[in-house]
């Protein structure tokens, strides 16, 4: 290991920490979650209404509880989306890569609720 190797690794870690701090400081409490499947927006749900929604024809079940959103059930093999836990702040996202599904928190006033799925 030479000096420049330490510098390189140090720069990557420093960059990551700066990004992490930026993300933490720009996050606010979210107002609604947007569900995207295969890149297409399919639904928006308010975070202040406790409810359970069936997504993508039943592959994933989204639960909203006390301002937090989480996927409570999924049919994918690894269940990584369920394990990602609860989200509530703007920009936070739960991804279910096998089903090409994402749940993203958005801020501001809850937009008009359109339930298509």
């Amino acid at each position: 290991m030479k000096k420049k190797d330490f510098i390189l690794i140090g720069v990557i870690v420093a960059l990551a920490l700066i990004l992490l701090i930026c993300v933490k400081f720009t996050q606010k409490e979210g107002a609604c979650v947007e569900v995207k499947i295969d890149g297409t927006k399919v639904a928006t749900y308010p975070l202040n209404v406790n409810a359970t929604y069936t997504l993508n024809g039943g592959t994933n079940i989204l639960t909203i509880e006390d301002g937090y959103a989480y996927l409570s059930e999924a049919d994918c093999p690894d269940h990584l989306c369920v394990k990602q836990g609860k989200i509530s702040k703007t920009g936070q996202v739960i991804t279910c890569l096998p089903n090409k599904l994402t749940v993203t928190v958005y801020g501001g006033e809850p937009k008009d609720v359109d339930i298509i799925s």
Partner: protein
Amino acid sequence: MKTSKMTFLGLFTAVAMILSFVETLLPPLTTALPGIKMGLPNIAIMFILYRIGWKEASVVSIVRVILVSLLFGSVMSMAYSLGGAILSLLIMTLMQKLTSFNRVSISVVGGVCHNIGQILVAWAVTSTAQIVYYLPVLLISGCAAGILVGLAAGMLEKRVPKIKF
């Protein structure tokens, strides 16, 4: 291609596959974030990259990703892994050829690029830009994993006898 070289590459493809499998047995550091991995298969890939060359390392890496995805994953997981593997190999090759960085640095950058590649594919597939919020934590975990993998690859290279093809 000589038979001895073909056997050697086949052997290391198998080693990379076994390392992928061993990795799935390790308990996850955190379940809140997908994608944090040791990157153990990269030990075999880096060994081939240093001992034989980038073309052979690319072949072993891509064959490994395809076989492991077919065995333990899905078609989608193949797309994410390929995105990571190709970007990681490209950058590692360029660094090895053009710079004098240590193999630990190259392994770190390879690990980080693997994460970046996967995120780019996931971004393209889901068109959710917020996925990049995963990146800072993945950069740090990629550094830690890359250091260990780089050291392991170095030890392996010292211990495996050189073979002429």
